[in-house]
């Protein structure tokens, strides 16, 4: 039963409905990271014959997301795949959607666990924190001042990672100090100017970690045009297309990321499994995710995509997203 699942099930009950209309709601539109994840989701939905839609606000705010969640509820879509702008603020709206029979999958950035059926985690937070710190430590020789350039001050996932990074640095790299965390609000220009300010206010700075794709690209752009190029290390989470230039010109040695397309792809299949009643989000449930194979639901309804992947000059040519 495919294709026709566009949502005739106006009052879709929970459990085994076949309403395969799946709506992706990223943090905001026009963000290359989410463009890629939505493409992955679309690919998956087309594979299993559902209807795909992507909606979202222009700016990454929770209130704007709520309007879209409400709309999805009114439309009685089969499942909603969300990257949360706030763990709490969109909770009630999501629960209302679930009460109306919409399955809710979060990806990339989670809400509180009680507001969704599943969270598709790109990589576990410890792993993400660890891989970034390990790289910067390697690049600066295990000692010195580093700073963090984050997204917005309230970004759930970034804040969690930064906390874990601090802990990891404290325990494993006593010679490294994180001197400051600044927020570029996931805007090119703000991130760019904050980088410049960081470099000036901390003359001893050895490295910058930017756990956001917008931030790392802006920081790389600034570094590549400044005297600090090659002197201050930069790593974090970025997409190969954005970073190719800087890896090739030597501004950046390596950075990490999972494949956002895979993340979207997996999220779509998880949504399908929920809609069709194959899984309920309990720990131990397993489901088939097309090309990616089989996945198991872990504690708290979290599904782990895999380990982050480290890109460097040797392998970046193999990727195009």
């Amino acid at each position, binding site marked *: 039963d495919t294709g026709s699942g566009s949502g005739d099930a106006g009052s879709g009950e929970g459990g085994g409905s076949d309403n395969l209309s799946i709506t992706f709601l990223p943090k905001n539109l026009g963000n290359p990271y989410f463009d890629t994840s*939505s493409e992955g989701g679309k690919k998956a939905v087309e594979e299993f014959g559902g209807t795909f839609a992507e909606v979202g606000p222009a700016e990454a705010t929770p209130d704007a997301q709520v309007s879209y969640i409400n709309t999805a509820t009114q439309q009685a879509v089969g499942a909603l795949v969300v990257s949360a702008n706030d763990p709490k603020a969109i909770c009630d709206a999501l629960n209302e959607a679930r009460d109306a029979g919409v399955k809710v999958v979060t990806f990339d950035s989670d809400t509180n666990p009680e507001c969704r059926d599943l969270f598709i985690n790109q990589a576990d937070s410890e792993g993400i924190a660890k891989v970034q710190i390990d790289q910067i430590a390697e690049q600066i020789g295990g000692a010195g001042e580093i700073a963090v350039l984050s997204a917005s001050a309230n970004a759930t996932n970034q804040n969690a990672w930064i906390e874990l990074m601090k802990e990891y640095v404290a325990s494993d790299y006593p010679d490294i100090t994180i001197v400051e965390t600044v927020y570029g609000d996931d805007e090119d*220009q703000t991130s760019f100017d904050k980088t410049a300010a960081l470099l000036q206010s901390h003359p001893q700075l050895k490295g910058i970690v930017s756990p956001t794709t917008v931030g790392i690209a802006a920081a790389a752009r600034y570094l590549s045009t400044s005297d600090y190029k090659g002197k201050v290390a930069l790593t974090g989470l970025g997409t190969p297309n954005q970073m190719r*230039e800087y890896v090739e010109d030597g501004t950046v040695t390596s950075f990490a990321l999972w494949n956002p397309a895979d993340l979207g792809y997996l999220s779509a299949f998880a949504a399908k499994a929920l809609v069709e009643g194959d899984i309920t989000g309990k720990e131990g449930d397993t489901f088939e995710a097309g090309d990616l194979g089989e996945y198991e639901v872990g504690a708290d309804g979290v599904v782990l995509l895999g380990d982050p992947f480290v890109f460097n000059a040797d392998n970046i040519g193999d990727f195009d997203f």
Partner: protein
Amino acid sequence: MSTTALAAPAPAFAKKPGGIGRARELGIFAALVLVVVAATVKNPNFLFSADGWRDLLLTPSILVLVAVGQAIVIITRNVDLSVGSVMGLTAFLTGRLFIDVPGIPIPIVVIAAVIFGALLGLVNGALVAFAKVPAMVITLGTLYAYRGINVLWTGSDQVHPSDLPKDFLRLGTQQILTIPVLSIVAIIVLALAAWYMRNTRGGREYYAIGSDPGAAELYGLKTTRRVLSAFVLSGALAGLAGVFYVTRYGSVSSQVGSGWELDAVGAAVIGGIAITGGVGSVWGAAIGAMLLMTINRALPILGIPDFWQRAVVGVLIIGAIVLDRLLAVRQKRQLIEARDES
């Protein structure tokens, strides 16, 4: 004889019209110097490192362009809230041209972006000038509409630095005698605009229209054409700013320039342009723009925590206009009281 009314020569009390205006710009300029000095004392790199010096000049250039256009529009007693959106669209156009027309010469792209910006400004200007409706409403409308078109057009096709010619990207940081090229362009534009506004009929007519639109009509000035041209100019400068943005920041999302309208208006107002039109100079607006951007960069240096920076910017904006006002009031009172001595 019936009506022998009373009369005497009107009192002549001399006050230079430029006096107050120039003092205003000086005050803002002093504030700018103060910020730079404070930041440099705290951290000499702010001024005395190659990057610091370059950024000091480079960072404000983009806003200077937008603020100059905005200033001219405000002087005609209008306002252009769409500049941020215009900038976003032209920035994306710049990127697209390089991607879609491989090998396209840079000057052609610059000209195309400026013309595109001017066209967007023309839409604003035509609506305001012909329909004779408040500019604030029209440009608030195009602020939304242009941004919407931008998001629609961009879709998921962002522009990355790797899409752009190296020569073009290099322009963003290139320096001549340590002065960044972009700053030189901005200064030339500023000087031309300032000269035009001060020394030509056209420039003075902008002031006249803003000072009293009704009187301008009675004088037989070409109000419609002037208002139109102010918006076209503002659009064109925002277009140029869009190109600047791309060379400087390298990547273009659909949100380029969002929120810049308030910065541009803020810069003009801080620089002594009266929001009611007819008063101020583009120099003032440019200094206002430099002050805003420099404060933003100086605060982290001065050790103001990231989160409080916006609050400090707010205080400084308010401080600047309050100070300006107090000085103006005092000067005016002195002028009046000086009559007693005369």
